[in-house]
């Protein structure tokens, strides 16, 4: 069926090939670049960004080559409100947000999709690596290294129904080769990895600018001893090992990790890796992509982007999900998403639900458990 498709074009290779494929599939495609900053210079410059003048130009040139109309949509205000402000607020409360996921949830498949639908489009196509099965479920991409189903798990079934991911069945290197074949100049443009609205990649400096740099203690979780100081608890993430600046090694000589962040008293607790071990995870109210389930069921859960998967028993109640991991996880940060998958090696694991992690717990078992389980 011929659809009117709005292709979100970041200026990167993936969204360019996705747009070209949508055209080839017979759809009536219009390219749109989302301007996410009022002042494009303030977001990352250089080849790797997604919000710079270069990116806007690259997207436009790709649209020219593909032969589709192209426009720039100003989403700067919404993006700032829903993604950047949320990013600050989450760090300020000791959590670790995933801004790409938030952008998908609030901008690409909400503000942009809504506007597109109102303007007469049937669907939004993006260069995300994920598959949509004939059953309408969101599934992992063929390329495990590129799979982005984790950051798309937050889509509602209605949003998913109007989304297109033309790259899900193709490994990244073939997408690049295809871009080259199609004469798209972005074929060799490096992937973006950093957070697009942090110009120099210095997340810590970005947070300091807004949230300040108040000195606080780094405390040993076992002894309560003050081991060092930091200039802002918001600069840490649970599970972080590097950049603690502790001069004294631990008694056992093993590395220390951030165990918890308490913004109220600007306190960062550190301790051994084993203390990061958790096996029970609670989320806020989830988004169900498949039909809602209540009773406990067996599934796999993923706890951060490109993180490993954990077999788990998942149960839902009115307030959220509880996942009991069959083997423990380490360094699980509140604010990240817990995405529940139904494993399927053939068609790709299907996303059942996604919820923001609120809290974690551990069952007291011998410290050797984790190592023994080979995690």
């Amino acid at each position, binding site marked *: 069926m011929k659809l009117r498709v709005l292709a979100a074009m970041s200026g990167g290779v993936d969204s360019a090939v996705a747009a070209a494929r949508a055209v080839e599939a017979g759809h009536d495609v219009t390219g749109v670049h989302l301007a996410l900053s009022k002042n494009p210079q303030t977001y990352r410059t250089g080849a790797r960004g997604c919000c710079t003048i270069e990116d806007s130009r690259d997207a436009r040139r790709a649209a020219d080559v593909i032969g589709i109309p192209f*426009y*720039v949509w100003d989403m700067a205000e919404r993006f700032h409100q829903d993604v950047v402000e949320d990013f600050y607020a989450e760090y300020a409360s000791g959590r670790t947000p995933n801004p790409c996921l938030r952008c998908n949830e609030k901008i690409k498949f909400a503000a942009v999709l809504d*506007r597109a639908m*109102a*303007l*007469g489009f049937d669907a939004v196509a993006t260069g995300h690596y994920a598959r949509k099965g004939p059953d309408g479920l969101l599934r992992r991409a063929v390329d495990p290294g590129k799979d982005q189903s984790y950051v798309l798990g937050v889509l509602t079934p209605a949003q998913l129904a109007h989304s297109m991911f033309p790259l899900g069945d193709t490994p990244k290197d073939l997408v690049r080769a295809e871009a080259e074949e199609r004469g798209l100049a972005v074929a060799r443009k490096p992937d973006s990895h950093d957070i697009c609205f942090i110009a120099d990649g210095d997340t810590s400096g970005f947070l300091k600018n807004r949230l300040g740099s108040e000195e606080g203690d780094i405390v040993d979780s076992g002894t309560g001893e003050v081991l060092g100081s930091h200039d802002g608890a918001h600069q840490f993430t649970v599970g972080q090992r590097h950049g603690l600046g502790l001069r004294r090694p631990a008694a056992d000589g093993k590395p220390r990790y951030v165990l918890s962040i308490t913004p109220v008293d600007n306190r960062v607790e550190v301790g051994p890796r084993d203390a990061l071990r958790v096996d029970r995870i609670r989320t806020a109210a989830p988004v169900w992509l498949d039909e809602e389930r209540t009773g406990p069921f067996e599934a796999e859960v993923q706890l951060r982007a490109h993180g490993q998967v954990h077999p788990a028993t998942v149960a839902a109640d009115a307030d959220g999900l509880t996942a009991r991991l069959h083997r423990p996880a380490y360094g699980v940060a509140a604010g990240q998403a817990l995405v529940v998958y139904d494993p399927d090696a053939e068609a790709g694991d299907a996303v059942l639900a996604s919820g923001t992690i609120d809290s974690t717990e551990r069952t007291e078992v011998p410290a050797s458990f984790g190592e023994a389980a080979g995690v």
Partner: protein
Amino acid sequence: MAYLDHAATTPMLPAALDAYVRTARELGNASSLHASGRAARRTVEEARERIAAALGAGPSEVVFTGSGTEADNLALKGTHWARRSEGRNRVVTTAIEHHAVADPVAWLGDHERADVSELGVDKLGRVEVDGLAELLESHASEVTVITCMWANNEVGTLQPIREIVDLAAPHGIPVHTDAVQAVGHAPVDFSASGATSLALSGHKLGGPAGVGVLLLTRDAECTPLLHGGGQEREIRSGTLDVPGIAALAEAVVHAVATSRAEAERLAALRDDLVKRVRAAVPEAIYNGDPDDRLPGNAHFSFPGCEGDALLMLLDATGVECATGSACSAGIAQPSHVLLAMGTGEDNARSSLRFTLGWSSGQADVDALVDALPEAVERARTAGLT
């Protein structure tokens, strides 16, 4: 395709295109002393004379530039630099200038510490001359240059250049006018206007892009922007674009010669467009002076719609128009002209400009009126999301 964006650029007139192609085949730098050079020089000088005659100027008052923007920059910066002194460092502009004027003036303020005074406009987009009278009472001795466009590029309102010149003249203050939108569309007589300088652009009147003119009186003080061969009165350097200049002259002569009849034709077509747009979208607001405006200009706000959504939807049906507002990296800003006219930010974002030109006909208006209601309906739904 219905092209309703002649204020952005208008197709080259066949005579201008012929002149361009013919001249582009010929060899010669107009500054060279040999036969080829003399031939090129002759082409340039004939063009200069024809342009001067068409616009009520003397040939020596015609300074060729690379664009209307360059002509505006040269007039404003050049005049300011030449005339500024202890106690005289003020530029007077208006709230509705094109960026080719607004930005050099802002630059003079930011980088050269010029004082900038901005004249406001009334609801129809006409500069309020009373404000200038008041300003000159107390600050006349401080002013290096006053600038006011001949006709507004967004809403089309014609500006009171004569009144501004009359106020400035007793104080000996030069007046610059950006007439890029006016030449060939409204009667423009440089000498009769009393302005010291006037900018025009080739591609707005059926000539090529990449060539413009600054009309500049012989006794005007003006410091060059570009230094080099001094080709144009030592005020503007750069090898002259002979084919561009020949084509521009062809276009100016033709546009001016036909402007009275063409203005009548376009105004009638425009009035039809306005009437039918209002009938199709009753809540549309017609911006600018309903009568005293450029004949080919119609400018509307469509409450509840975003201008760029409308533009995209019309574009998809083959109807091409403009939001008429400035763009930075493709991001539409609310129109500074509409804001200056007292329009709220929402309606300033909801505007579309339809401009007609020599190649426009009834079919263009029909196509717009056919496509508009559905586009407005959709854009309004999108505007609410």
